[in-house]
């Protein structure tokens, strides 16, 4: 078997995987869990605690879900491509710090700066991964240390609070429009944009192509390296963007505040049904995953379980979801 034959043998599968994920083929048996999961959880928690469905709690859950959605959008793209980004937590902290430090000087622009610098940081992550040919989980782990240090140096290692005078410039995220906080609206717009990119743009098609079979994508003429760097850039922007949004809620910043979000964002993506092996799933699935993780978190808190202890549940959930969605036919050797 020549290499050429091997590639030809694989090509139809890449195409079929793509077809599977486009259009009506999307709703299948394995999509039932992501759709029914949040509804079931809501019913269970509402039955055990009626206050769970009260307006303030629903609003709280909505705000938390919006933040997670922003983070998980970037993570979904990265995972679809078959890579992983472990620098999300550090960049989240950096986004928070950037907003808190810059808002006294530049006001609202601090949000734009945070997102733009996050995009640059993400591009650097991508360059380290692709340019130095280091596996993404290690490249992003190493770079996480670098970004954390940048954030720590900016705040001199302490937590900073935003001066009261500048609150109007950051509190807009919580201001309601027709009863819906603006952070939810931001997340919804981002989500809509992400879905359009995923389904209608070249980037979207290439995401699936690279994730399904990177070699096949490369010989088919996809500039794999360039798109990987772009996607890491988008993920970086989403991470600092999430941090920036959260700065408006907590009215301050802590460089290490993003740590728990690494697992939660990955959890939302894989619980939704996007396979860690790449090429299967999408943003739509992540919406369900975000709903499951958010409802579960709030429900467990209502039941009196410490948020830190909940990591036990999230960790277990991730393992189960990864095991269930992995495409094992793709790799004979799992490293």
């Amino acid at each position: 078997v020549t290499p050429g034959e091997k590639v030809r043998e694989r090509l139809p599968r890449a195409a079929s995987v793509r077809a599977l994920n486009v259009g009506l083929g999307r709703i299948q048996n394995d999509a039932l869990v992501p759709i029914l999961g949040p509804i079931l959880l809501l019913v269970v928690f509402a039955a055990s605690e009626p206050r769970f469905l009260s307006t303030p709690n629903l609003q709280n859950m909505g705000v938390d879900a919006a933040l997670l959605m922003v983070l998980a959008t970037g993570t979904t793209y990265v995972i679809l491509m078959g890579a992983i980004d472990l620098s999300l937590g550090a960049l989240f902290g950096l986004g928070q710090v950037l907003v808190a430090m810059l808002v006294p000087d530049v006001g609202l622009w601090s949000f734009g700066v945070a997102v733009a610098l996050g995009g640059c940081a993400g591009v650097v992550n991508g360059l380290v991964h692709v340019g130095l040919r280091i596996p993404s989980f290690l490249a992003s782990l190493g770079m996480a240390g670098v970004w954390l240090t940048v954030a720590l140096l900016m705040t001199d290692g302490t937590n900073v609070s935003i001066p009261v005078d500048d609150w109007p410039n950051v509190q807009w995220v919580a201001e309601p429009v027709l009863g819906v906080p603006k952070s939810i609206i931001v997340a919804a717009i981002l989500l809509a944009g992400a879905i359009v990119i995923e389904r209608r743009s070249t980037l979207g098609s290439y995401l699936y192509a690279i994730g399904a079979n990177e070699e096949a994508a490369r010989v088919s003429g996809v500039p794999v390296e360039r798109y990987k760097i772009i996607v890491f850039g988008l993920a970086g922007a989403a991470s600092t963007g999430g941090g920036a949004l959260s700065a408006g809620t907590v009215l301050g910043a802590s460089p290490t505040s993003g740590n728990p979000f690494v697992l939660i964002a990955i959890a939302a993506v894989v619980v939704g049904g996007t396979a860690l092996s790449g090429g299967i799933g999408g943003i739509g699935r992540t919406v369900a995953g975000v709903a499951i993780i958010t409802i579960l978190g709030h429900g467990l808190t209502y039941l009196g379980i410490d948020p830190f202890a909940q990591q036990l549940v999230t960790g277990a959930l991730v393992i189960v979801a990864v095991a269930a969605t992995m495409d094992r036919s793709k790799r004979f050797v799992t490293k």
Partner: protein
Amino acid sequence: MANKGVPTATQPAGDRSPRTAQTGRSLGSRLREFAPMVMLLLTCAIISAFEPSFLEWTNLMNIAEASAVPLVVGVALTFVVISGSIDLSIEGVLALCAIVCSLLVANSHNGMALGVWAVVVACIVGAAVGWLNGVLHARFGIPSFMATLGVWFAALGLAFVLYGGQPVVIEDKALLSRVTGDIAGVPVLALIAWTVLGLGYYVQRWTRLGRYAYAIGGDEVLAETAGIPIRRYKVLIFAAAGAVLGLAGALNVLLVGAGDTTIGNGELFQTVSAVVVGGTAITGGVGGVLNTFVGVLLITVIDNGMILGGINPLIETGVKGAVLILALAVSLDRSKIAVLK
């Protein structure tokens, strides 16, 4: 070399001088083998040129003590990395075992007083978590970095449940002073770590577990074809690493004197850097515990030099991240990575 100049299936016909190529490669690889050691000596030389107090006995013993727990953690990770996997659950396992150990010796939370046996229990708990890592990875086919990432947070969550929000202060003064004391001027902690290193070298060199770790990491498919029960040995390797991590967690908590869930923070980073900087390939099959010893010393010496030189400690994590990336960029065997994920 038997096939002098004769093209074979593995040698392209155009290569006219296989022998020179071979010699050149081995020279390069020999250089690479000693690069970490040279880097360590160079770093020491540079630091002692600026800060003569670096070479004083007390400072050297400080380094020995500071590198003790990272060395134990490093020995554990080395076996996992040699076999071609990775263990990201280090911080979670350390926290869990530290809490377990602190809750079983005389402490501020309950009436337990198991003394040294608490360390043994911590090792068993670590082994159990490691076994879970191995089963999830080897039996369920989940990539090791993902399985262990999940276990990291699960173990951390469990540690939170156990300790209940308040640091567990250890009140077994006898045990504390035994661990933090010294014998003939050498810290006990360092002696324990060197013993673990010696045991690790024995296992790596003269036992089936060690040899199979290299075989699996070198080429998993080949190892399986050769009849090695790779799944069983992967689980064993993860479990053994977990037990050693349990010991590290216990030592760490006895050094600090109070159990807290943040006790493992930063260890993952530090340890992966140390293992890779020492020359153990992240792709598996190459390296060993002695490499890790050099890597741990290098990282600790850099830390120590930064403290002596009065450099802002905040950049420590960033320096380690950069060192990790640099070491990976130099040492990674790309021919073993078919598709870069």
